[in-house]
């Protein structure tokens, strides 16, 4: 598995798209800091971008990589290599190279700007950690979609739909249920609902760490009480990990049975 991981990883590292992705984040970080001159404001803007863009890129890249390297995969399958290690290796190769682009791309400008001397370092680290988690989650989901769909067009549409659902539609449904049930106490419901969507979970985790959380008022206080404690943080990190582990397990299960 490690060999395949290494191969996929270096294959991707050498590819043009990783560089474009890395450069994009580098540029983004620089421009944000240049325009804002303020680390905490830059972190807020960055959060907006990360919670929408990272899942999108993770999904598209994952699906694309799977379909592109299909012939190579089939070649590998003819060798005496464990099936699961082929797919998990490929998955990790994609996910890790994407997370690396994210972390290096954003880390360099912020580090140069004097992140280590500022108080924002924990917020920024949280941002990077959730960004990496989102990459891992959405790449895994993308691999799942690709494994289930031989048809490329179908696979791509499902992938985009998945992103659309998680990033936009889910919040719409969430909003509607909150409005419909407004006469009931909604604290537990809203905490529960955020747990089921990694994008929402990451958004709230970061939001509560920033001083903008004061805007959230009473609801924010409820969330702060839940997520602000060590227990809440551990719980949300474990939910995020669960979001990684479950799809990966499914890749493992599906790849063993799949007929090529």
């Amino acid at each position, binding site marked *: 598995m490690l060999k395949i991981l290494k191969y996929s990883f270096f294959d991707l590292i050498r590819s043009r798209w990783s560089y474009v992705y890395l450069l994009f984040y580098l540029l983004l970080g620089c421009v944000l800091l240049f325009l804002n001159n303020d680390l905490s404001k830059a972190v*807020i803007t960055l*959060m*907006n971008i990360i*919670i*929408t863009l990272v899942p999108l890129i993770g999904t598209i890249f994952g699906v694309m990589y799977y379909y592109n390297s299909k012939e190579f995969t089939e070649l590998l399958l003819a060798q005496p290599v464990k099936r699961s290690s082929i797919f998990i290796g490929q998955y990790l190769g994609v996910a890790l190279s994407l997370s690396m682009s994210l972390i290096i791309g954003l880390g360099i400008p912020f580090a140069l700007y004097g992140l280590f001397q500022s108080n924002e370092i924990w917020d920024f680290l949280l941002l990077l950690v959730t960004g990496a988690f989102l990459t891992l989650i959405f790449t895994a989901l993308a691999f799942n979609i690709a494994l289930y769909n031989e048809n490329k067009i179908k696979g791509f549409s499902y992938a985009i739909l998945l992103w659309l659902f998680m*990033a*936009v*539609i*889910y*919040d*719409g449904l*969430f*909003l509607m249920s*909150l*409005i419909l049930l*407004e006469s009931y106490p*909604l*604290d537990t419901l*809203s905490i529960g609902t*955020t747990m089921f969507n990694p994008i*929402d979970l990451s*958004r*709230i985790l970061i*939001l509560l760490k920033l*001083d*903008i959380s*004061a*805007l*959230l*008022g*009473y*609801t*924010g*206080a409820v*969330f702060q009480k839940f997520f602000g404690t060590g227990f809440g943080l551990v719980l949300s990190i474990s939910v995020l990990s669960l979001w990684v582990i479950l799809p990966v397990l499914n890749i493992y299960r599906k790849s063993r049975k799949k007929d090529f």
Partner: protein
Amino acid sequence: MKGTVLYKWIVIITIFLTQFAFAETITVCISCNISSLKDAIALAQAGDTILVKKGTYKEYNIVVDKPLIIKGENYPVIDGEDQGEIIRIVSDNVTIDGLFIINVGTSYTSDHAAIRVVRSENFLIQNVVLEKLFFGIYIEKSNNGKIYHNKVIGDAQDEYNSGNGIQLWYSKNVVVERNIIQKVRDGIYLEFSDNITINENTSINNLRYGLHFMFSNDDLYTNNIFENNGAGVAVMFSKRIKMVNNTFRKNWGTAAFGLLLKEINDAEIRGNVFEENTVAIKVEGSNRIVYSNNNFIRNGYAIKVLGACYANTFEKNNFLYNSFDISYNSKINDNVFQHNYWSSYTGYDLDKDGLGDVPYRPVKLFSYIVNRTPETIILMRSLFIDIIDFSEKVSPVFTPDNLQDMTPKMKRY
């Protein structure tokens, strides 16, 4: 003509000399014959000056019952040893100048103050430093006085067992100027006090409000700084208050605001700066208020309107980078928005008259939803919210469609 001028001078000099002839100066110091302020007051005649030399005087319940000038030299310390009230003024024409008063007693039944003025006219309290206090300067049913250039530094921890820095109760025509007030419950508190002028004060780090009005009319406050208080300024149940050129800064927290207006009529809010407050102005049931030339910079909400507010005018303000410009909870709008600059305005100006050709709608759909169901705030900064805000901006359905600035400025003031 020359004769009249000369005559005037003679009169002035005569008055001056007679004043001087009668007024004596009594010196108080630790090693003098008179070593306590109380003794000095007992000895003094009306109109005398008591000069207090540097030193520590352990005294409390000092009653000033005749017109006197009590002047400290190099800030003598009056230590109340937490026994109770320190100075009580019950006579007209009293001046207190340059004292350092500490350790006012805390009581839950009577409001002990460092300096209390009771039913007296023409008082002047200046250059006084107060520390470790319960109430600072308490003006009670006293008119025509001045509180100038004092420093009140409290160490309040909880709202229930702390007092106010400067409190005016049933007092008229008082000037409160250039004071610095920190870490008390309310920096300056006015109750039933009319025609008060509050000028160039600095009120910071207070537990509750920087400045608090209750049932007080026709007051003016200008050029003050309110920073990092539990909430900046609360104006409640008062009429015709003028608020000009003040700075409200960093009143940040889940229940904080820069300025609260509750049941206020006919006020004027002009030229103030609101910077980084959770809610810059929170308005409830306030009518006929003119908001002009204010700067709202990086607040959570610039203006949050709750309840019936009619016939207000918002003009020539700068709204810069607030999370929500206006939050409004009713569908009826009777307020006028004109000639404001909105940093999130995206329209164009084809006829180059400096005003945008497309009206600006300051109420976002999301702020409307949050007003209805507060829990939905949890969706803040989600992509979905940006999308619905955008569609509402294009064609308003839920927000009041006449709540708009028809003449938004293209450049900030």
